[in-house]
């Protein structure tokens, strides 16, 4: 196995894996274990097929693919409706496959309960006019976790995903998304209320076809010694005209010892595209805080209200009401820990 990615590798500058974990632990890690917490509709759950699709991945996914011996395959047939809730129950190297066939619609939830180390590569295929809504909840932990999704979205398909990451010793989520057919869309959002923990979202969205759309909205609140990272690259390929891309990443820094690094990046090889990106890091606004307190709202309650307001639009990107409520609950608890 090659050396672990470290801060001298540009992509891993803010997430030094070599510093976070012993290479021996990575090399000797077992195959990760998954459980299907629930499923509904015509979802077909099986072991991974012998021949797996392979999309673009980051450095650690190679190790996961080489080391993981098994994993779940979640498949939804043409024009079907379904839901599935996956748990990563034991750490190690993992692989998974999610296929949503043409015209089908799958609601996927993912919860991470892994031990001290997990390194997972997930292949996702969204068929023509298919729709996948994906919510991943990673509760606050002390683990080193790398999860790397490679997503291909066909013509008219939609991949909508939310990542609520409360941080770990090192938590890295990579998303490599190819909008492969005309009109394909992806809408990504995520929140990281971090207290003394690390969370990194690194995305690469490629608009390979025309009239494709991508939006990204990521919010971090960092207290203590927390570190929040967003690196987002959008590539609009030659000929992908009429594409539309928006990237927003914002951070709220609550302590001098915390850090938030936001790096949106655009690579445009087509004409006639609309692309916008913005990134900003700030502190809780003193004037807003005073206004709320002058109306009788105690300091901690006022701070919580402002943090909630800051993070809110990203959480509200979750369409399913019950899932949104459960993430809100976790966010509120985390924000309370940041007061």
């Amino acid at each position: 196995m090659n050396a672990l990615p470290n801060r001298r590798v540009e992509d891993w500058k803010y997430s030094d894996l070599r510093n976070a974990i012993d290479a021996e632990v990575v090399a000797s890690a077992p195959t990760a274990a998954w459980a299907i917490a629930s499923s509904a509709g015509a979802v077909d759950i099986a072991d991974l097929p012998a021949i797996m699709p392979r999309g673009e991945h980051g450095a650690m996914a190679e190790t996961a693919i080489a080391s993981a011996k098994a994993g779940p395959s979640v498949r939804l047939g043409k024009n079907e409706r379904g839901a599935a809730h996956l748990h990563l129950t034991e750490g190690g190297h993992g692989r998974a496959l999610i296929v949503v066939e043409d015209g089908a619609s799958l609601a996927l939830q993912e919860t991470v309960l892994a031990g001290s180390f997990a390194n997972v590569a997930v292949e996702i295929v969204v068929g023509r006019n298919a729709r996948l809504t994906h919510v991943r909840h990673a509760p606050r932990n002390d683990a080193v976790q790398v999860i790397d999704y490679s997503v291909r979205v066909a013509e008219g398909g939609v991949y909508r995903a939310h990542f609520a990451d409360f941080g770990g010793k090192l938590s890295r989520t990579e998303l490599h998304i190819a909008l492969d057919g005309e009109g394909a869309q992806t809408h990504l959002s995520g929140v990281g209320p971090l207290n003394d923990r690390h969370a990194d979202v690194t995305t690469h969205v490629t608009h390979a076809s025309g009239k494709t759309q991508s939006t990204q909205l990521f919010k971090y609140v960092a207290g203590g010694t927390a570190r929040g990272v967003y690196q987002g690259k959008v590539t609009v390929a030659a000929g992908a005209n009429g594409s539309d891309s928006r990237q927003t990443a914002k951070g709220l820094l609550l302590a001098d010892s915390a850090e938030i690094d936001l790096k949106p990046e655009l690579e445009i090889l087509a004409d006639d595209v609309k692309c916008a990106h913005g990134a900003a890091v700030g502190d809780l606004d003193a004037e807003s805080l005073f206004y709320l307190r002058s109306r009788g709202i105690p300091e901690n309650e006022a701070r919580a209200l402002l943090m909630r307001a800051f993070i809110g639009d990203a959480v509200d990107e979750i369409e399913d009401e019950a899932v949104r409520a459960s993430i809100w609950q976790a966010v509120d608890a985390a924000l309370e820990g940041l007061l």
Partner: protein
Amino acid sequence: MLEIKNLHATVDGKEILKGLTLSVGAGEVHAIMGPNGSGKSTLSYVLAGRAGYEVTGGSIIYKGEDLTAMSPDQRAAKGVFLAMQYPVEIPGVTTLTFLKTALNAQRRARGEKDVDAVGVLRLVREKAKALNVPEEMLKRALNVGFSGGEKKRLEILQMALFQPALAILDETDSGLDIDALKLVAEGVNALRAPDRAMLVITHYQRLLNYIVPDRVHVLAKGRIVAEGGKELALKLEAQGYEQIIKDAA
């Protein structure tokens, strides 16, 4: 109700209030008039307890208690309300949520029970109607995209909702056209009560045509330099600050 004695206050280490003395009784409306830079806004922020506005001497006694020892939220719960010159825009917090949170925070601090969502909505609607605040405004993020007049109306709506014992109105007339001014003044006048005191801080006499004060104080260079009845405001308007301040010296 409010006794300010020989008050000295600094902002960023610079002394702005230099021995201000003022007494406002229950049921009274007092106007504080002064030119730009006289310390009007500093006085309002000191009374509300804003961080960075430091009292370095003198005293502020409100209902027999030392106001300077209380946090801004404690002051609010005890009935001090500042209608701000520049109400803050807070994206992500709807106006109604804010009103409910604030009202119940004040009630809780006083040991009273929370008002439930339906109760708050009923209360707010009743006040909103009188101030011509449309329901749609209450659903929007607090002050975000509100016009100057809308922001000021919402300040007065809060005053009507919280029913403070001491209301301080900081340049409530600034940025208002005459119709909005009348509406806001009506709202304020409706709140005049024997157990409530008001301090109306303004640069121009105009507002005092509509909110008629019992006493007028002229603030200059951090001190009250002249006092009188409502006619003093008219004299100021006719002669200008310079003359009055010179006469007082």
